[in-house]
């Protein structure tokens, strides 16, 4: 088994490279992704190796980046689109919701809408406004789309390849604050299916589900809780739409308590969906109401304040106290 250590950014880069080697129809398109390699260097060196026809530096218009990827999909290409930052996806919202999500249906299955929209998301990088948002729920609610998020290098390497191979359009959420964190990558075997959740830490008292950048925070909270005698089971949702409910149900049936963690606000969020689904499916297993630890219902704050906005270890532990004391 060949494993190697690399950052999540490099793992995405290597995953994209492997997908492009495997399938000549795979194209990359986005702003600054060519010579510069993207503002986060995720596509570093790919234009040099695969040429300008396959790694396309796009003019600055997100609706067009996605809208032309739709046309390329109709023509039989698989385009991996890079949206530079979360807060810049909104100009493309119309194309994503009106065309990307619906054209397979509208063409009675004739059009293959296999394309990937890479979306750097969540906060924690000290950026200015519009560079730290969590828009995943907008897409999770849209029928026709699938939404996934990686939380570590190995998942990044495999999930990007699995997303490219998948025949439905995928919103691929990448936690920017974890781009530079290193992890072991298994170059031979995918860890699991693209839409499967993963139990990152086994525990017996409380199930804590999160995704993306939140995972690291949750695992730190679990270590602290252990010292206080509370055992957290940590689940990386990985797929936000659809949710892998089976893995979550099995866990909640064991622990009887549920916390969903996310950086987006509560209302109509992925965390809301997790809590609602598990309340419905595990009602008699639950010993306390499922609760959410989220960003507040305010526009993402100036980032000097972001650590008071994003779920912290303290806020997760406070939630643990609440479900334990219910």
């Amino acid at each position, binding site marked *: 088994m060949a494993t190697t250590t690399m950052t999540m950014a490099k793992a995405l880069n290597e995953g994209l490279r492997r997908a492009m080697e495997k399938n000549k129809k795979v*194209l990359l398109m986005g702003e600054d992704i060519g010579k510069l390699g993207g503002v986060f260097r995720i596509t570093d060196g790919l234009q040099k190796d695969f040429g300008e*026809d396959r790694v396309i530096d796009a*003019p600055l*218009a997100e*609706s*067009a980046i*996605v*809208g*032309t*990827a*739709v*046309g*390329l*999909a*109709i*023509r*039989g*290409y698989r385009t991996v689109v890079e949206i530079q930052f979360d807060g810049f996806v909104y*100009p493309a919202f*119309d*194309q994503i919701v*009106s*065309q990307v999500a*619906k*054209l*397979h*249906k*509208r*063409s*009675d*299955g*004739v*059009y*293959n*809408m*296999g394309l990937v929209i890479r979306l750097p998301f969540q906060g924690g990088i000290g950026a200015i406004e519009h560079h730290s948002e969590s828009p995943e729920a907008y897409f999770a609610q849209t*029928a*026709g789309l*699938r939404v996934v998020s990686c939380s570590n290098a190995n998942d990044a390497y495999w999930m990007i390849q699995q997303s490219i191979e*998948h*025949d*439905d359009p995928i919103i691929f959420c990448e936690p920017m604050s974890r781009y530079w964190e290193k992890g072991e990558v298994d170059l031979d075997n995918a860890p699991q299916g693209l839409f499967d959740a993963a139990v990152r830490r086994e525990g017996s008292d409380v199930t804590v589900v999160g995704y993306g950048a939140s995972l690291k925070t949750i695992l730190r909270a679990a270590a602290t809780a252990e010292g206080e005698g509370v055992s957290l089971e940590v689940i990386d949702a990985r797929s936000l739409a*659809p949710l892998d*409910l089976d893995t979550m149900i099995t866990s909640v049936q064991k622990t009887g308590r549920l916390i969903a963690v996310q950086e987006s606000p509560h209302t109509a969020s992925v965390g809301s969906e997790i809590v609602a689904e598990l309340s419905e499916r595990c009602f008699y297993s639950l010993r306390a109401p499922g609760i959410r630890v989220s960003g507040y219902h305010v526009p993402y704050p100036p980032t000097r304040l972001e650590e008071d906005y994003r779920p912290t270890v303290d806020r997760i532990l406070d939630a643990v106290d609440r479900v334990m004391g219910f």
Partner: protein
Amino acid sequence: MIEEELVQLLSPEGERVTQADYESTLSGDEIFSFYRDMVIIRRICNEGTSLQRQGQLALWAPIQGQEAAQIGAGRALGPMDFTFPTYREHGIAWCRGIPPVDWFRLFRAVSNGGWDPQKYRHSVPTVVLGNQALNAVGYAMGVQRDGAEEAVVAFFGDGASSQGDVLESFVWAATFNAPVVFFLQNNQWAISEPSSLQAKIPLYHRAQGFGFPGVRVDGNDVLAVYEVTKRALEHARVGGGPTLIEAFTYRMGAHTTSDDPTRYRVDAEVEVWKHRDPVERVKALLVHEYKVKKTALAEVTAEADAMALQLREDVLAMDPPDPITMFDHAYAAPHPLIDEGRSEMIEMGISGGSH
């Protein structure tokens, strides 16, 4: 001023017009077949309006006045060219060989598409204004990468010309020299808004600012539309890049059957355009220059009537599909919520006529 800018090969009276840049290459037989196409789609579209008025369609978007623009463009297409329509491109659908009944599935509200877009090389209707212009350019970028000599056409109107997607598609097409033709039917009205609200310059002038040629053609002159479109398609196929064609025409009827144009435009304007009717001028040419007999013209009318009758029967027989089909093709791969929805529908006895 505007009249001088128009490419026109046939006057409203049906007389040949000499142009420096274009001449008609069509034979009398071909012109007659264009005439036949125009008569048939006008008749079928009028049937659409009747069907809606009789409660048989949710909506209908009539085409009257724009027959020359669509038949001229549609007949210029090569078999491998690919087209991206709005919801009003019935004439293009006709030229692509799509059975008329299929155009009506969307308007009967039994489908959100209606035909196999790859088979006919004509995409499904786009209702969100301008989205398809970007999709067309993307498709054209794929054609480029395949090294194919094919052209792509994006259809849209004067209203959609204000959409960001259309303007972004101009940028993309120019930057990547995409083999695409933008076919803009300026029918003067976007529901109640005149084209003067969308643009302070002739719309085809916009192309120049984006770095590719634009041409305004008399959209009620099928000979001119055909030649202008044919040349733009050929230009695209051989790597010449995009062209914007503004077919200057007029929507004689309502925007859709939900619209009431008497609230926003005057009869006098409609009267002016009646004298520029696209079908009448070809008929005049056929009668005067080619000595086409009244009986031949009457045969076309009878054929169109028969087709409209057949269409009516087909539309009335068009039942809503089994509700469970709403889950088909929502996703390409298995999805738990689709399975869940299907199961619920079956358990509730909603599907399969078992209720």
